[in-house]
């Protein structure tokens, strides 16, 4: 076992490209690598992945652990976790950053438990801070209540592991790749690691616009439940060309699709205009759109925390405010010739 003290990023790929969240995490890793004077390494696992090493190097990877095997073509939960855990045990990185994606959310908890370390889900901020001279990864997550954030540390166990949603950090600038060491790792692919086996992946046709790409996002919260249905909201969305998202309770109610859930465990969006309707403004929700350029919030409770972050707050009953908004926008010629 070698203690490398490296900072690792799990490299995810999508259609033969490195996933955006991986680049975002590499940006953060490079920042920490400089502060701590340690190497930044990527863990790249799959089939024919070696062609992607150049891109990882261009975003700051100084070392790449490549685990390449045809049997690892699809995401294989158990086999991926076993391979990554082995690597963690062997090289003992100090920090391991993982995207909070379909893959990351499935893989990270298993790896953390098997490696005997902690894991913090959906961090909204990461910093290095010193405790008695020892650098620790300060992992920021939303708390409950009004405006609280919590800081989580993993003081003893290594690596310090976190997952981070796409969109929380910015993609760094691509650079000319520097020196990058490629470590070809012998894959573990015997049957023992395939008690669960992915046999097919079916992609669904994407019919609606991804919420993270919309210029205008309307988010509905628990208060909208009083409106009996979303028809008026849909009309408003059509007028503004907006995509509708919502809070977790609205997803639980089945009013909003899971992939349009906004917040810590959902999507992080940064549209030009964000309209929050009937959401009180719990941190778990608001962290999902803090980077929006302009925020309008409507809620009937004037004390709702959402008003502390809104550029314009409207106190009122949604059943009155929304039709009024539609009328007013129509008067300005919106929604006629769309």
């Amino acid at each position: 076992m070698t203690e490398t003290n490296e900072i690792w990023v799990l490299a995810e790929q999508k259609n033969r490209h490195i996933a955006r969240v991986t680049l975002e995490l590499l940006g953060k890793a490079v920042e920490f690598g400089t502060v701590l004077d340690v190497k930044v390494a990527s863990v790249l696992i799959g089939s024919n992945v070696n062609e992607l090493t150049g891109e990882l190097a261009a975003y700051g990877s100084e070392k790449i652990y490549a685990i390449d095997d045809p049997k690892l073509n699809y995401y294989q939960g158990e086999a991926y976790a076993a391979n990554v855990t082995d690597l963690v045990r062997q090289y003992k990185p100090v920090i391991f950053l993982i995207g909070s994606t379909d893959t990351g959310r499935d893989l990270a908890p298993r790896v953390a438990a098997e490696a005997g370390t902690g894991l913090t889900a959906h961090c909204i901020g990461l910093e290095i801070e010193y405790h008695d001279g020892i650098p620790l990864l300060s992992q920021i997550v939303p708390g409950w209540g009004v405006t609280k954030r919590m800081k989580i540390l993993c003081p003893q166990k290594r690596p310090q592991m976190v997952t981070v949603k796409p969109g929380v950090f910015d993609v760094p600038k691509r650079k000319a790749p520097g020196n990058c060491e490629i470590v070809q790792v012998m894959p573990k692919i015997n049957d023992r690691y395939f008690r669960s086996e992915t046999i097919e992946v079916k992609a669904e046709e994407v019919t609606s616009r991804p919420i993270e790409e919309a210029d205008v996002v309307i988010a509905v919260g628990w208060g909208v439940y009083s409106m009996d249905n979303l028809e008026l909201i849909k009309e408003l969305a059509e007028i503004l060309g907006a995509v509708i998202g919502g809070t977790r309770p609205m997803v639980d109610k089945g009013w909003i699709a899971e992939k349009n859930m906004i917040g810590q465990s959902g999507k992080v969006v940064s549209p030009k205009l964000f309209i929050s309707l009937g959401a009180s403004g719990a941190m778990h929700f608001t962290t999902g759109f803090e980077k929006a350029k302009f925020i309008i919030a409507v809620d009937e409770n004037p004390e709702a925390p959402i008003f502390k972050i809104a550029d314009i707050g409207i106190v009122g009953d949604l059943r009155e405010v929304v039709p009024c908004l539609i009328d007013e926008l129509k008067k300005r010629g919106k929604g006629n010739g769309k």
Partner: protein
Amino acid sequence: MNIAVCLKQVPHPDYLSKIIYDPTTNRLQRAGVPLIINPVDKNAIETGIQLKEKYSGKIIVITMGPPQAKESLEEALAMGADEAILLCDPAFAGSDTYATAFTLASALKKIGLCDLILCGNETLDSGTSQVGPQIAAFLDIPHVTNVKAINYPEDGLLLVERSLENGYMRIKVRLPALLTVTKEINKPRIPSAIGIMQVAGKPFNTWRLAELNLSPLEVGLAGSPTQTVQIPETEQRHAGDILQGDVTKVVKTAVAKLHELKMI
């Protein structure tokens, strides 16, 4: 098929924004907050009941929590689970997901490992989705997260569909295994009057630290690799104008502002 369903009692969503922290322990203060079964955990219970109805077997529901978590277990019994186990000990307080999963896994070992362990895919409160896969890791059994459909083609093997953001995966998984299910998988039943009456006759056990044969250092805050160390106040976005009063006028002002800023 013997099935264990792990569930969590969480605050009612109406109260999520009203929850406060104890400033000295950094723990949630739950007093006065109505508690419910985490919504998607009911889908996990329903999944278990449907499998039992088809293939026979027994369903044990289990949770770790304070004494009032008993109510959630009783609701699960009323839905159709056969036995309930509450893991309740002051030593369990302050558990992170690692210690929670470790404690639940220890209880599942004591029960005698079931063929199938079911969890909801995410909780309403902390929403980490971590405990399920971590339990599977501690038990050294395979897991599949976000399962939206289950088939049982042959003994010891399940064929499941795992929901992805844009699509799904088909996965073969050998039993024993742990699955976390999504809310699309079914519609949880409401307990019937008979179901509610039967609760009192069903086995209900409370296990403390001693019954699990664990050291206090392995559970709760002491057994948690991660620690919540402080709750810093942070900068917020600057609050803008809050408009109140006549709705028509207020909306007119807001839309005019948007127009002026070329937002619309």
